[in-house]
């Protein structure tokens, strides 16, 4: 019997669903509360900070001037084009984005801390804020940071040898000028931390809602100026991260400093407004792309000028290179791109820092490549599916012009399966019928690759000063036969503990609920990189498999001695060590007990303790999304009628969990496509600071998904599983927006921006109707 491949109910769920989960705010009992006074302006010199008069016992307020010995957050990228910018824990001398923390108030309750924080008067000589890449790149623009006089923090450039020749040979060159508006990952639980000082040992424990506890400990120790061993970081239950909780934020530096300074326990639970203002943003990108095609519809060359607004600072540890360099490196996506010219800039502005958000640059680059295919098909008179057939990668390994190596995938097969499942001819008939009734249906296809589970080689290639990627796992079986797996990954809702338990169960022959996975505590787990970049199943899973294999070997050795057979004759299955073909069987708990309590019998080290390490090169999963929409041409409203996903993530350890990842990702992708937009006004005030203004889709806006699976086995993953954490978000926007464009084809409306809000869609229809006399008269 195998556990891999079964949709086992998640071991994590009973406690979470019954309200027994413990989130960071559940750890705040007995703490003093912290509130930050934040800059009301986007940019300016701090002339002075007036602190409130506080009665004895009424709390305390601190500013940058108090933070003696505290350094700045300055992540490193070893590239000549990278401009390192330091982020202070509290603003010193100047403010560079609205919401930047300037002072910190500590009081008995959260309300009292807020009372103090709002009485802090920050006297700022304002500067004209630089909010957009156009403003930042304008001739003579003020430098946001003196370290980067051109306002460019990172820039990638590449031109392949045959580029000019390929463009010259093209039958048609398609131009795209696409825009993704600024978005937020909107985790249900905002950021938060509780730092407590232990007077006995002098250590600080920080419980925080984060994705990378070990990395956070390193970063905090460096910035605060303390030994890592004096700091313990715990990620308890975390209510969503999506990348937003990967970075080292100034607020955590202040909390650790406060706990040491006041020798007490302090708690900060971020509110939604702060989360929108001052956590991290993403997706503020503009791509200008030209695709040169042959008459047969083959893409000969791609020419890309990519801009990413990375905000005021560079996120630690992955840096502000994350969006611009991924856009630059992975633009070709699932397509063969023989020649490439790319320029990609990370532009700094007086806005909230950019940090990774599920998908990182790929929602936008998939939107770009998929619009390119659609427009090229139209220009060449080809079917939109057919042109993709002619350009998708079909031989592996494939090396892209930017040097990315693709392992085995099923780009073409997944698309064919999705197209067949949808029944395109039947849709076209319905679409034609609907148009005669004044209803506008559209179908959109999106094919994409998702690079997952990559180890140190990929990060090292980016020149990161801190090179993440590997995972270590420590496994132990206790004398009762239960297994503890300590991992450096830090799952926060993905169901990884269940999936790893299934892996271990198959190796060791125990049931999954005898496997306890311990994560998210730097005192209890090996150093690792947390959970991000669709990596944990592949990398922590691989390391877990190695550790479990070693444990199985030891159990077999003990069993062989106990049953007096050759090791090779022993199998572990359903709680027993058995010798097939005989009636010999020993319960695994008996082996565990013997390993601990009768160790003298075996000539082996006592106990069952093993470890595993994995640092793979990475594996691509892939999928095709097809979306059907109806556009209300009078309001611009879009309703999603159908959403099909054909996903290839290799072997599915737990298919239900994979489907859950896809569903959540698609929901966020629908938000990116149609709803979500962070808006600054021209003075730099963020106008979208609540969930009444910033609009993630709800259950009512997300359709039921039809999910089909394919299985391509890659040698790049020892568990044969590929990552699947981001694909939903990567692929969905292009599918939705291509569907909207298809629905509006009779009007000739171009969809060049996400989100495509009702206002933008309706105004585009009206503008085209005014310009285009052939459009229906009723518009």
């Amino acid at each position, binding site marked *: 019997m195998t556990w891999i491949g079964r949709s086992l109910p998640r071991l994590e769920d009973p406690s979470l669903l019954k309200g027994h989960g413990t989130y960071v705010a559940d750890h705040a009992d007995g703490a003093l509360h912290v509130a930050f006074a934040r800059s009301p302006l986007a940019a300016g010199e701090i002339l002075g900070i007036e602190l409130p008069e506080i009665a004895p016992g009424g709390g305390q307020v601190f500013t940058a001037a108090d933070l003696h010995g505290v350094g700045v957050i300055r992540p490193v990228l070893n590239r000549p084009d990278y401009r390192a910018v330091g982020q202070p824990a509290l603003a010193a001398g100047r403010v560079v984005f609205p919401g930047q923390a300037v002072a910190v108030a500590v009081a008995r*309750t*959260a*309300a009292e801390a*807020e*009372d103090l924080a*709002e009485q802090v008067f920050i006297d700022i000589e304002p500067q004209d804020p630089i909010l957009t890449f156009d403003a930042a790149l304008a001739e003579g623009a003020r430098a946001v940071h003196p370290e980067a006089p051109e306002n460019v923090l990172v820039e990638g450039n590449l031109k392949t040898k045959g580029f000019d020749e390929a463009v010259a040979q093209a039958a048609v060159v398609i131009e795209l000028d696409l825009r993704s508006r600024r978005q937020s990952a909107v985790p249900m639980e905002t950021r938060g931390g509780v730092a407590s000082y232990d007077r006995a040992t002098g250590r600080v424990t920080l419980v925080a809602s984060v994705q990378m506890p070990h990395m956070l400990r390193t970063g905090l120790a460096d910035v605060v100026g303390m030994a890592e061993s004096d700091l313990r970081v715990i990620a308890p239950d975390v209510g969503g991260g999506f990348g937003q909780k990967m970075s080292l934020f100034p607020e955590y530096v202040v909390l650790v400093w406060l706990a040491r300074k006041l020798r007490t326990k302090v708690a900060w639970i971020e*509110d*939604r*407004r702060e989360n929108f203002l001052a956590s991290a943003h993403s997706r503020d990108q503009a791509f200008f792309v030209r695709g040169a095609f042959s008459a047969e519809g083959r893409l000969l060359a791609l020419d890309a000028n990519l801009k990413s607004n990375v905000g005021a600072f560079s996120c630690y540890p992955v840096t502000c290179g994350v969006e611009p360099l991924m856009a630059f490196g992975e633009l070709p996506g699932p397509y063969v791109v023989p020649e490439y010219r790319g320029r990609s800039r990370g532009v700094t502005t007086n806005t909230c820092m950019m940090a990774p958000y599920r998908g990182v640059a790929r929602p936008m680059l998939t939107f770009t490549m998929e619009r390119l295919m659609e427009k090229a098909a139209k220009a060449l008179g080809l079917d939109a599916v057919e042109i993709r057939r002619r350009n998708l990668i079909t031989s592996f390994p494939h090396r892209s012009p930017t040097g990315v190596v693709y392992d085995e995938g099923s780009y073409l097969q997944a698309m064919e399966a999705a197209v067949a499942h949808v029944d395109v001819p039947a849709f076209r008939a319905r679409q034609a019928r609907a148009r005669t009734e004044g209803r506008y249906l559209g179908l959109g296809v999106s094919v994409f690759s998702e690079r997952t589970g990559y180890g140190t080689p990929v990060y090292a290639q980016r020149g990161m000063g801190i090179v993440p990627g590997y995972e270590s796992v420590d496994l132990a079986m206790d004398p009762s036969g239960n297994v503890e797996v300590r991992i450096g990954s830090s799952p926060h809702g993905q169901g990884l503990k269940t999936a790893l338990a299934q892996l271990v169960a198959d190796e060791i022959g125990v049931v999954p609920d005898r496997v306890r996975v311990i994560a998210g505590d730097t005192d209890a787990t090996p150093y690792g990189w947390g959970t991000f970049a669709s990596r944990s199943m592949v990398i922590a899973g691989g390391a877990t498999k190695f550790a479990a294999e070693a444990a199985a070997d030891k159990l077999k050795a003990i069993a062989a001695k106990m049953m007096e057979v050759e090791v090779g004759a022993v199998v572990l299955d359903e709680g027993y060590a058995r010798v097939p073909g005989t009636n010999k069987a020993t319960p695994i708990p008996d082996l565990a007990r013997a390993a601990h309590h009768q160790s003298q019998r075996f000539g082996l080290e006592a106990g069952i303790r093993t470890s595993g390490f994995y640092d793979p090169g990475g594996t691509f999963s892939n999928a095709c999304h097809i979306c059907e929409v109806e556009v209300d041409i*009078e*309001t*611009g*409203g879009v309703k999603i009628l159908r959403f099909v996903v054909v996903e290839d993530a290799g072997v599915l350890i737990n298919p239900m969990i994979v489907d859950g990842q896809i569903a959540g990702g698609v929901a966020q992708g629908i938000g990116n496509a149609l*709803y979500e937009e962070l*808006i600054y006004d021209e003075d730099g005030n963020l*106008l*979208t600071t*609540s969930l*009444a*203004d910033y*609009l993630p*889709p*709800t259950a*009512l*806006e997300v359709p039921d998904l039809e999910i089909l699976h394919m299985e391509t086995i890659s040698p790049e993953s020892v568990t044969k599983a590929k990552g699947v954490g981001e694909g939903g978000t990567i692929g969905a926007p292009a599918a939705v927006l291509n569907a909207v464009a298809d629905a509006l084809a009779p009007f000739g409306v171009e969809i060049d921006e996400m989100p495509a*809000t*009702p*206002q933008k869609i*309706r*105004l585009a229809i*009206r503008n085209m109707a005014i310009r285009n006399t052939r459009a229906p008269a009723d518009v």
Partner: protein
Amino acid sequence: MKPAAFAYLAPTTLAEALEMIDRIGDDGKILAGGQSLVPAMNFRLARPGTLVDINGVAGLSGISGDSARGISIGALTRHAAFHTPPFSGPLADLLAKVVRNIAHYPIRQRGTFGGSLSHADPASEWCLVTATLGATLHIASLTGTREVAAADFFRGTFTTALQPSEILVRIDLPPLGAGWGTGFYEFSRRKGDFALAMALTALRIEGGTIREARLGVGGVADRALRLAKTEAFLVGQPAHAETFAAAAAMAQDSIDVSEDIHAGADYRRDLLGTVIRRALAEAAA
């Protein structure tokens, strides 16, 4: 996101509540369902010194009457009370149709009819209903009860004729009996969001001709607006699409529409026409 400090009072009778708000004056705020006030306090946009919680005041909730005679609604009646039509007939059906557009299910369990009117959000569905149908609002104070027409009650965004010493206690909706058809159309970004534009109408049509008309729009200006001139235009016209388009155009020309991040003036004016046409078509169907 914690409110500034405030005092909290919980009267159990209307007389007690009126005495309290009279004494407190400007610095007080009445807490009914709290679905707008409490978030505003948490954002510290509202900072009442004293909250007077009327949820324990007896006799302020309940619905009586019927479609033909008109309906009387206690101010503390929760939105959810209209999830199923409280009576038969066009008026009750209209209220049941409208209520599903008010925010979300949990909010409708707590939010109150009178609270919505007193808060006077320009995109409030109940404000639109009362303004369009010509409701009478009963307002109590220590000096007695006065009646105010909905048309005179709404003064602008979050602004009404209510004095700090007054409580809205009851709302009377006039009859909408047999022979009336009603229509309501709202467009919002997501289900349950504030309307970017909405229209509510009631038409009495005989032999294809409109004999009586009520028409109002919400979410497009600083308050819900009853469109009296357009109503007058509709009366005597044939109930078909051309009439509705002409009515929509009249409204579009006469209203100075509001703007926000989800709908600029151009788009909102355009939507205004669409929601009017759709509401009228529904009423005539």
